[in-house]
């Protein structure tokens, strides 16, 4: 079997493996096992739940490039934009303001060339990712609803451009639960705060256990993960004492299932203290692997570190891993000069390519969906003829998907000759979300949550599964 994952995602065996690892209270765990059957287990909101239909993907790695990556400089080749640079086009809206504007076309800063057997064209901005195009489906007709970072960032994460709603990762955690109870179901690795802040991985009205657990690259990636007791033995004494008291308490409160799961949570926490540092401990990774990601040994800096952590989390059964490359500053928001894309691309290019190659060689790409997106593209035109940057552009931009259930080596959708509007097969953010849920075995119209008298969905009342890109 190519897939060497250590877990089997059926609920009983998942729980069984936890029982096997339980140091403290096997009795309690067996009770948990007995009552926790069925998708609506009240004691464990993260219990594995059945999918709506057979899924292609078991987990998602969601790569988010913050600030708005220029599509016409990266994934969407526009020969006419090279040819007609300096000429004017007329648009009826500019940066959210209505009106008739004459704009100057700006030449892309990076040349395009076909790559791989598929011949998908990628610019020289991403030389490493270009090597992986045969594993990708590049979508060149993405659409968002808002021209501002805050709203567009919220939109690509939650499907709502205005109000805080559950993030896509929270919906998937809510819909599917998690197979590794020692780790959160939804992990976000972000070196800085993105636009719209924690709402981006918030669970909003969904139960709080579905919110993303934030990992900040650095010495202390997860809050309170570092054992404060001076030795493991000391901590075990404390846990043991607490467990005895809790067990006695449980005997007199046997009907409250929540109490049992709370006892369990201390075991998980204890396990996390070990497992989380293990996730971040790359000492067993080979030099070849580190090289593939372009990761300096011992370094926790940069997207390469985030990508390798993502693979290690995916291996351990984390359902949804989101990586945010930078934050709300010093990002892809290249108003001043497109050349600021260069160092940002360098940060992510080899790392992402490494991640794809690594997943593939481990057989994990067969059941892992990798998604790469940004909140919007950048204008192919500018108000000034010699402007060096580009503005926000939500009418069309590019994203890609790779891995489980997605056709590889194809492109989908087209922008117009200059990359200004969608010309063919639009993929709105809602469609994008519907497709991700579909690949995870969830029907976006059925994955609902009742809040304030209304059933909410990730895709609101919209969304179309882009069947054309499904393998």
């Amino acid at each position, binding site marked *: 079997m190519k897939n060497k994952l250590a877990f089997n995602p059926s609920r009983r065996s998942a729980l069984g493996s936890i029982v096997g690892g339980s140091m403290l209270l096997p009795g309690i765990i067996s009770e948990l096992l007995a009552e926790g059957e069925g998708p609506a287990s009240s004691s*464990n909101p993260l219990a594995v739940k059945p999918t709506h239909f057979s899924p292609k993907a078991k987990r998602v790695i969601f790569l988010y490039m913050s600030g708005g990556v220029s599509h016409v400089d990266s994934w969407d080749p526009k020969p006419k934009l090279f040819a007609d640079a300096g000429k004017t086009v007329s648009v009826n809206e500019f940066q*959210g303001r209505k009106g008739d504007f004459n704009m100057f076309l700006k030449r892309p800063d990076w040349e395009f060339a076909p790559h791989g057997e598929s011949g998908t064209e990628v610019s020289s901005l991403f030389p490493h990712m270009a090597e992986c195009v045969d594993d990708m489906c590049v979508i060149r007709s993405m659409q968002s609803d808002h021209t*501002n970072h*805050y*709203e567009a960032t919220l939109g690509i994460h939650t499907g709502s451009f*205005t*109000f*805080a709603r559950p993030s896509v990762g929270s919906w998937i955690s809510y819909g599917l639960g998690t197979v590794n109870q020692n780790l*959160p179901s939804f992990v976000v690795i972000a070196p800085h*705060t993105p*636009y*719209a*802040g*924690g*709402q981006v991985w918030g669970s*909003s*009205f969904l139960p*709080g*256990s579905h*919110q993303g657990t934030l990992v900040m690259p650095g010495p202390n990636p*997860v*809050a*309170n*993960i570092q054992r*404060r*007791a*001076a*030795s493991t033995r*000391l901590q075990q*004494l*404390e*846990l043991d*004492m*607490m467990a005895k*008291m*809790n067990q006695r*308490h*449980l005997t*007199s*409160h*046997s*009907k*409250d299932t*929540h*109490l049992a799961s709370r006892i369990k*949570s*201390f075991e998980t*926490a*204890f*396990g*996390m*203290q070990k497992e989380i540092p293990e996730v971040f401990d790359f000492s067993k990774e080979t030099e070849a692997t580190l090289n593939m990601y372009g990761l300096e040994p011992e370094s926790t800096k940069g997207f390469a570190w985030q990508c390798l952590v993502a693979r290690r989390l995916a291996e351990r059964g984390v359902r949804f891993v989101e990586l945010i490359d930078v934050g*709300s*500053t010093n990002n892809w928001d290249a108003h001043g000069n497109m050349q600021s894309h260069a160092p940002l691309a360098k940060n992510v290019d080899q790392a992402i390519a490494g991640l794809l190659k690594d997943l593939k060689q481990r057989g994990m790409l067969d059941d892992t969906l990798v998604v790469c997106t940004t909140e919007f593209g950048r204008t192919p035109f500018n108000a000034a003829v010699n402007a060096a940057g580009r503005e926000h552009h939500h009418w069309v931009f590019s994203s890609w998907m790779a891995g489980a259930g997605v056709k590889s080596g194809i492109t989908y959708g087209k922008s117009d000759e200059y990359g200004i509007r969608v010309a063919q097969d639009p993929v709105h953010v809602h469609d994008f979300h519907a497709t991700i849920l579909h690949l995870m075995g969830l029907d976006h119209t059925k994955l609902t949550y009742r809040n*304030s*008298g*209304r059933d909410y969905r990730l895709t609101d*009342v919209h969304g*179309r*599964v882009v069947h054309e890109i499904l393998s």
Partner: protein
Amino acid sequence: MLISSLVFLGGQSVRADQRQDFFEAKIRPVLIQKCFKCHGDTKASGGFRVDSRERLLKGGDSGPAIVPGKPVESRLIHAIQRQGDASEMPPEQDQALRADEVANFVTWIKSGAFWPAQSAKFESVKHWAYEPIRNVDPPKVQDKAWANTSVDPFIQRRQEEQGVLHAPTADKRTLIRRATFDLTGLPPTPDETTAFIQDTSPHAFASVINRLLKSPAYGERWGRHWLDVVRYADTAGETADYPVPLSWRYRNYVIDAFNSDKPYDEFLREQIAGDIIANQGAENQDSAEKYAERVTATGYLAISRRFGFDSENYHHLTVQDTIDNMGQTMLGLSLGCARCHDHKFDAVSMQDYYGLYGIFDSSRYPFPGSEQKQKMRSMASLLPSLESKQKWHEYEARKAALSATLTKFQQPIPTALLRSLHDIDGDIELQAAAGGGSNGVLVSPWLYSGNIAVAIAAQSPFRNLYSAGRVGIHVPVGEESYSIQQALYPSHTIENGNLLYVNLDFRVTASDTNAQGVHRFSLGSKDETHAAEVLISSESVSLKTGEAIEVLSSIKLNEWHNLQLTFDLKRKTISGKVGLPGSVVDFSDKPMTSNWNGLIDLVTFDSTKTLGKSFPAIDFDNLGVQKIKISPVTQQSSTVVASTAQLDPNLLNQQLHTLLGNDGDFELQDKGTSPAHPWGPGPNSVVNVSTQSQSPFQNIFPLGKLGLHMPNRAEYDGVVLALANIKLAENERLFVNFDFRCADNQRGGDGSWRFYLGHGPGNSAAIEFFMNGKGFFRRTANVKDLVAPVAIGQWYQVQLELNLKSRTYTGQLTSAANQVDFIGQFATGWDGMIDKSFIDSYGHIGGVRPSIDTDNFVFQSTPLPAFNAPVVKVAEGSQALRRTEVDKIRQQLVLLQSNAELAKLELNQLLEDGPFAMAYAMSEGTPHDVRMQLRGDPSQLGDEVPRGFIKALKGSSLPTITKGSGRLELAQWLTRADNPLISRVMINRVWQHHFEHGLVKTSNDFGTRGLPPTHPDLLDHLATRFMESGWSVKAMHRLIMLSATYQQASSTVVATSPDASANEDVTDLYTSFPHRRLSAEEIRDSILAVSGALDTTVGHEHPFPAAINWGFTQHGPFLAEYNHNKRSVYLMTQRLKRHSFLALFDGADPNTTTTERMTTTVPTQALFFLNSSFVYENSAKWASQILASKEHELEQIELAWQQAYLRRPSETERAEALKFLKAYRVELGLVNSDNIESRSLAALLRTLIGSNEFLHVD
């Protein structure tokens, strides 16, 4: 047929409302979700709409859609079955109806296609929650011994019906712990517990409840429940999440309201219309506290979320948030859906929605600041309006005085921060001109229509009323159908003073002589009786009163004019003046319009629409309407600078300049110091006036004692001279002299100095020369080259003659040894201006440079004495005299400078403090009705709807809004005795917070989509008692908590009756008390309480950064957590980033209403108990307290158990604890720990803190 097809609905007989339920549950939602998009009221594809039965019967282009009773013949069925010849509907395959949905349509048509009303817009729906509250007596029960209060029989009746038993009464320890957490959110103390256990009187529990209800902690707990529902936060929630420093006042108002048991109806009225009620109270001599309290209450509306980059451009979303929250919080109704369409399920129409919208849109929300407009403003005054007006004027005057002081020193003036309401936005400074994310149109408190703009060019130059601003209103050429309005609040009548003063600046610009259109400025009342109208044409300004028009004065095009009107409201006459400074026409005793109704509460700018006339452009600024007299027009600030009035810094500077000239020989400077005025060192300079730097040359100045010395350093700013009075007429020449020597080059390096002359610093140099230890270089055009080599230690004189017209220069570099002539061109980037000269280290060669001495600088328009000209002699005595004079002026300037510094400090403080205490609260705006926003899009407007209420809930009658926004009427209408919802919704919340769930479990949704009450009679009984008690929440606590139902043992410890049906949800039967986990706040407060660390004082404002420094953006939003040991309700909570602790333990979501706290169990919570510094620090504190009071280990354990669990440890627990402590000490010894005794006890206490018994309530 009808009956048979509907049996699955569960009834044996079919009533009309079952058909209706079926329609509402199964048909209408599908029609709306799947069909409306194309066949709704905005788009009727195929000529066909599905929004009424009639339209379905009529069908579209291909014939009728439905045939009632005959699904097989109904095209609608063919379409949704995707069979037959009808088009497949909906066209998208993945939108296709499910089989069960299709079956429902078949059933529906078969049974006659029932449609609830004759149209889609139904105005009354029969639904239990909209029915009047019934005064229900407790039902008869079999076991009469159980009931304690009238609550019990209702509960007992259903238990008896279901054959289940109630639980026994809880023990006293459990009861007091339950009651104390329920009412205060804190654990009881061991002493309180003992006292209750020992109190054997029948009223023991009642006494406990009364004691708890009197504790201030009660309001902190129950206020928090309310704050959850109203999504309280300390930040605004727009893209940069601006802090709202005044938000806390509303938070404390809520806490105080619960503590004082403010009648609930009054509580609601104050939150909707407290400011209006306060003003009525002020007229009735209510106390100042009462006034402030009521105004503060409207913080409820003010804390509505803000959105976007420029939140005023997204104000419609804020109003939407207000309506959503008010519906859910107060009425238990989701009104939000009606923003885009008539409510699918509940009786709320778009008409209703926009009727409410108009009310809030006519109100002024305070502005918290946003990325686009970083200053907060429009805060509400906590003083009655007349008093606050007075203080406001004092504040403005003080602000103007301080600003004037700063202006004199050309120091930046902080922009005003807080603008209170009760004052019109007359200088337009609250508005932003277009740019950034702003559209440059007027926003609240103004209303406008037409093509007008806020423009920088429309700023009036006059300062008789306001200090200098930035913007005014511009009405462009040809604009004739505009209208700009603002309501005056409170209104001006004869009752609040005889005289009313009005000020307005305007300027007419006409591009052609045919611009004959007339603009109008009018004051009066909303019902269109003007007190007076001022007509402004391109030729004259006239006064119109009734039909009479009288020309007051002619006007000059393109010139700003000032108009002042004084209304004598008693005599009904107008006097005034109009004109430009120095040319003012007075007029007096003109009659006011005869049919004027005695009220002035609206100003309007518009045009007298005249057919065929073209309109000149007009600018307006500085509108004032006040009871205080207005100064005559002037371009000077009206306010005198008090403390520095006798000294004029401009004058002093001028005198100094005359005395010093350029001070080019430095003889008036002080030895050993940095050069003073007119020279100034750069920010990183080491420049001294030095005796070793005296030039030996005497052709320009007499031989002196001083020059300038700059040591040899790599890089720093040199010395600058601001040149005044240099005329740059094209034919003029400029003559320049300076002497220099490179004194030594001990540190090596070829770095050069730069001599600069131009409009700099920056690129616009006219000429530049460079000196290092080796050469003298010139710049000609953009080329730098060597003029001549120089020697270290040798003095040189540079003389230049600049031809400003040809942009060329000639020069000589002369030393005792020789002379070099050179010529050059000005730098190509020069912009035509020369006002600065300096020497700095930014020469053309970098690195360490020699030290340099310079002297004898001259810049003049007449030729200079040549190098070999005769020696200039010093005039006897004149130097000393000048020196004395200069010293005197310098001292005065220093004094003024320090006054400016003080003024700056005072101004900052003044701006922080504001004119009076303020709240983040509401005020009245300009009353108006709004147009419906089609599909919720504010750019697509439908019909205008009058402000109003929800018609289906109208009760006996709908009040009419006669004046103001309508909030007062809304508040009264909401809290009227026959509103069935208010009382039910609140009593349900009270019940919910005692029993985990409400009788209606969807406590924010009493509509048709919510769950029905489990005990409808009890709900109505409680609602009745609630109103009878005078809306006393505390009375309801007593009623509920004294019940036997409340005092039952906990759910998890009692088995329910064996006969209970296995499927019955026993929680609905209240056969025991629900066991619950503590909320986030209770967890934190309990840990602090048992550790002895809890600070029980009331929290006030948060330590936000000073508002004048704010500049938060979406790239750098506001982010902070402020820790303290006060109760958790006083923690600062943000919208963009949730508080880390509160978020971890399921705290409220401050973005949206939280009806019920969830209880999640995640390992990160366990990590908090295992490893957080909070738990470690507090367990250590607790341990040290126990160690200080108890010597023996067993006593320590005993006390810990008492404090944590309010009980003694069992034998087993005692033994386990002893064993734990022993083992822990051994292990600590192994890791060489210090303080082993306290550390091991703290560890034991941590296990108590983390235990389920500590964190749960039975």
